[in-house]
């Protein structure tokens, strides 16, 4: 059964130095608050997995938390580069960052296979693409029926998954809705997990019979962090703060402006910082 805790207790309990950590959220429900807590707790030597490393991974990389990044698209969506990621890859600042690069299809299949308890995933992929030449984790199998060669990749089995959900009920079940990404798979594929949520409710109430719900017994810890996905968005709660994504380009471009921002806005703050971004309840058609 999931354990309810504060965010700092939750990160303390689930993330260890050297862990392979998947903080997921495919442009929606990105666990920003949890990522900041990892920075505050100064975790080191992490292998970070994420399809679309964006601002939160830029911050973790820039603060020296990561030794390695496993990803498929590393940019500031709709804006441009992730300057801290680039600085680490191009210049080795603040440390050399090893990268393991895949396509989206590969990453999604790798999470799916991880959730399914398989050692690898197969898909029709990478044909004619150079990534297979530079990533030794991309191999192939031959279909025993048709002779077709299919791409094979190891499944993702992270030590920890960290995601942001919409609601938890008192029993610790977590409801997601909207752009689901690979969050359910990430949790099911991981040894440990932490879910931050917008809201804790007594009961989910009437709902679609096939609603996307992670049962309590598949989750490690739950922390109530309203606004915890800000500046990304939470379906039905708040919108994406687009202006911040644009502003980040300036903040992160130089090492000193980045460090100053992190000090002021992350290191000197705590999880309650996020509450101001939350909205109390579901607004129609948001």
């Amino acid at each position: 059964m999931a354990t309810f805790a504060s965010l700092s207790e939750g990160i303390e309990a689930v993330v260890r130095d050297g862990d392979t950590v998947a903080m997921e959220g495919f442009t929606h429900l990105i666990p920003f608050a949890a990522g900041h807590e990892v920075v505050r707790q100064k975790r080191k030597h992490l292998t970070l997995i994420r399809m679309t490393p964006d601002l939160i991974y830029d911050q973790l990389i820039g603060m020296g938390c990561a030794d390695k990044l496993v990803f498929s698209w590393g940019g500031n969506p709709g804006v441009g580069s992730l300057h801290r990621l680039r600085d680490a890859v191009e210049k080795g600042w603040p440390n050399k960052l090893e990268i393991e690069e895949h396509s989206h299809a590969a990453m999604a299949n790798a999470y799916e296979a991880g959730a399914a308890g398989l050692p690898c995933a197969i898909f029709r992929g990478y044909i004619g693409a150079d990534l297979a030449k530079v990533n030794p984790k991309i191999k192939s199998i031959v279909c025993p029926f048709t002779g077709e060669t299919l791409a094979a990749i190891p499944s993702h089995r992270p030590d920890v998954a960290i995601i942001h959900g919409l609601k938890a009920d008192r029993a610790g079940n977590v409801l997601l809705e909207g752009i689901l990404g690979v969050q359910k798979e990430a949790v099911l594929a991981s040894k440990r997990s932490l879910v931050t949520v917008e809201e804790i409710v007594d009961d989910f109430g009437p709902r679609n019979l096939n609603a996307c719900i992670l049962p309590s017994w598949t989750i490690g810890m739950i922390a109530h962090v309203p606004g915890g996905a800000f500046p990304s968005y939470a379906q039905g709660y708040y919108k994406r703060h687009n202006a911040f994504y644009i502003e980040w380009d300036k903040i992160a471009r130089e090492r000193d402006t980045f460090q100053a921002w992190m000090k002021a806005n992350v290191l000197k703050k705590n999880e309650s910082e996020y509450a101001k971004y939350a909205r109390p309840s579901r607004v129609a058609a948001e």
Partner: protein
Amino acid sequence: MTATYTPNEIMTVVAARALKNSDVLFVGIGAPSAASNLARLTHAPNITLIYESGTIETKPSVLPLSIGDGELCDTALTTVAVPEMFRYWLQGGRITVGFLGGAQIDKYANLNTTVVGSYDAPKVRLPGGGGAPEISNSCAEIFIIMPQGRGFVKKLDFITSLGHGEGDDHRQRLGVKTKGPTRLITDLCIFEPDPATKEMTVTSIHPGVTCDQIQENTGWTVRYANTVAETAPPTAKELEVLRDLHARTKRAHGEAA
């Protein structure tokens, strides 16, 4: 009668015109999104828009800033998880047209969005392929929208996604059954693959653009089709709808800030 327009506007309008009401599109952010929605708001009201974030048959009233924009999900028929999107919808062969673009393109419409320089010690680390390596081969055909310039190179530093490879029947030799890039739409002209060599060849030039301009902005020797058309300029209606869309988008994204 002809309205004035920007290079970006004619590029978007030309891309929109190439889309049919019956198409199922795999849409990326930026110009593809603008072109797809322009088509939907003009001649192709029932065109099907799919974004890789899982939103199926979405009808956004404003352009998304990212593929995960809530607007896409709120206006979709339904939204599926990302593994399903890549397995059932993209790999399943349900997409008629996929859009791609990149930092670099070569004359066979192979694309690079990975690195400038060497992979292990890149001069510029670009965002990476995202969905492109599989979009390029799973969609029935690919439209590329890219302004011409220094990204049009003789040789890519890295092949992120397959276009026509080394030309001729290279795709077929690799076992790929789809058409690959059938249109490269730029701010200057339209390229289409030569039927035999598959080299991207100019088939239509935008009004007022010269061959010199095209060559100056292309890193290889540009070839022209036997018959080269002049692109019809954007109509007042096309420009009005496109500009309204951008204005609505700007207001919406401002408000959300």
